């Protein structure tokens, strides 16, 4: 394994002591990008949290390699103690020290950090997480979402080499999740610390991740840039109604009459609802497979405004036996369409055919 200063390299073969399943073994070999958000996605029991704990050093491994951006955290039996690694860790549930105020909680890490944190940086993060009015309070006086924001700020303020987040939204209800999401997104934009984000929510993956690792039973089932992995029809984890693709686009035109934006991407353009994004801004678009239907000719007598011309690359059985999952190549982008087996038969589509994809719904994620 090479110690690359721009990547995170992990080689683990570990059987946790406290595992509920006796035979569970985390067995993986990963090279992750040293920037952006990498989502670790999987069902419960797939080893997501164990992976994170191994990375941080909270779970003692007898062997294995962990290299973070050129720093050796573990090499065989040579293990760097947790408190000497600069690792930010945000736990699933609130993990603030109850006997300390918000400010003291934040300062706990800052005081012990080997690097002096610059004041503007400190203020930037407090501002980013919206904590100015909360500094004097104690954890019990905060809402769940506020507590998680404090925990995130506390982890960021030690200027970690890597930020590990273990389902940080799982303990929050729907509204609080929506409340904290923008903070996570702006963190992604404004900070350059690599983030490893564990989740079992495909919505969080679609909104936040740049890179995706799919875990099942302790091993890696799929891994790569988000768009590629989501468009992979062989994905062992069935997403059902949530199957779909995500890609980046750019706002090219604003149509004030109809309140729409024209978004360009490598291979085409889509009209999307005007959510206030400014011209030239990069947006992330999600198209669910169930919102895409196929036609052999361009229909103009429908209410659907988005039609893309693409070539069929793959036809895959769906978990639902009445349905098929069809993958199209549209320029540089992959689209998935979920169509019934009967319509596929009637249209007589096969790999290599060129078809119109009619897109009923497009979501802007950010």
């Amino acid at each position: 394994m090479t110690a690359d200063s721009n990547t995170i390299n992990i080689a683990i073969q570990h059987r946790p002591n406290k595992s509920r399943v006796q035979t569970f073994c985390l067995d993986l070999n990963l090279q992750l990008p040293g920037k952006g958000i990498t989502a670790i996605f999987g069902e419960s029991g797939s080893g997501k949290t164990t992976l994170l704990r191994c990375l941080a050093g909270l779970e003692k491994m007898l062997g294995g390699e962990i290299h973070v951006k050129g720093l050796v955290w573990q090499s065989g039996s040579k293990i760097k103690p947790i408190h000497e690694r600069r690792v930010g860790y945000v736990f699933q549930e609130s993990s603030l020290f109850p006997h300390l105020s918000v400010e003291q909680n934040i300062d706990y890490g800052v005081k012990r950090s080997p690097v002096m944190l610059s004041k503007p940086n400190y203020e930037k993060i407090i501002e980013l997480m919206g904590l100015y009015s909360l500094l004097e309070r104690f954890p019990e006086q905060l809402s769940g979402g506020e507590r998680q924001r404090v925990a995130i700020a506390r982890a960021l303020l030690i200027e970690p080499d890597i930020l590990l987040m273990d389902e940080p939204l799982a303990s929050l209800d729907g509204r609080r999740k929506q409340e904290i999401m923008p903070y996570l997104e702006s963190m992604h934009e404004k900070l350059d610390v690599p983030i490893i984000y564990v989740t079992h929510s495909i919505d969080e993956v679609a909104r936040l991740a740049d890179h995706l690792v799919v875990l099942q039973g302790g091993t890696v089932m799929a891994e790569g840039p988000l768009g590629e992995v989501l468009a992979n029809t062989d994905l062992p984890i069935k997403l059902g109604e949530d199957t779909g693709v995500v890609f980046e686009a750019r706002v090219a035109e604003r149509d004030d009459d109809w309140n729409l934006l024209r978004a360009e991407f490598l291979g085409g353009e889509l009209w999307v609802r005007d959510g206030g994004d400014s011209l030239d801004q990069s947006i992330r678009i999600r198209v669910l497979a169930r919102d895409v239907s196929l036609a052999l000719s361009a229909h103009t007598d429908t209410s659907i405004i988005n039609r893309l011309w693409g070539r069929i690359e793959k036809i895959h059985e769906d978990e639902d036996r009445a349905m098929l999952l069809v993958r199209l190549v549209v320029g540089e982008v992959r689209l998935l369409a979920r169509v019934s087996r009967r319509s596929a038969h009637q249209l007589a589509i096969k790999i290599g055919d060129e078809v119109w994809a009619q897109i009923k719904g497009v979501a802007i994620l950010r």
Partner: protein
Amino acid sequence: MFSEGDVTAIFLTLRLATTVTLILLVLGAPLAWWLARTNSRLKGPIGALVALPLVLPPTVLGFYLLLALGPNGPIGQVTQSLGLGTLAFSYSGLVIGSVLYSLPFVVQPLQNAFEAIGDRPLEVAATLGASPIDRYFSIAVPMAKPGFFTAAVLGFAHTVGEFGVVLMIGGNIPGETRVVSVQIYDHVEALAYDEANRLALLMIVFSFLVLLSVYSLRKKSQRQILSFGS
């Protein structure tokens, strides 16, 4: 109201209990911390050993301490070779005996308080750069504060209330080993029931107030589990 002998006994008792409580907090906290955190196979045996004074008659503990502290006992030989003489029937011997006898009353509430903290806050502290010793002082001790209060109060009160061990290894030397409980016994032996009554009532009021303070604190911090034996 109290005779000079009574007052001497009261102050001796308070001095003994304070000394013993302080020693126990210093020694008992790390022991309780270890018992709360370890996965060692020794956890069971050590825990049982600490709890022994809860079930043993004080005479048993006192008897073996007497042998150990005496001129032919292992501790006695060490203290003699250091020129300290033997510790049996002395204030120092009484302190040693009381420390052992009150040990579970301090260790168990502390152990419960440390266990109630759980792994998470300590893991968080570790990721924020705190070394193991730092974690103990900055997280474990402050979070276990109610446990320290309970431990101190129970350790103090239990030392005040002991009788058997004192009689076995301390005897009955005024100003040295004659504590309140022994003084009461002396009054009764001398058929001085009024004096005995006054001291005994004092003990009842004192003990009641001590337990009241512990139990009302327990109500306030629900998670703090009080556990003590006899």
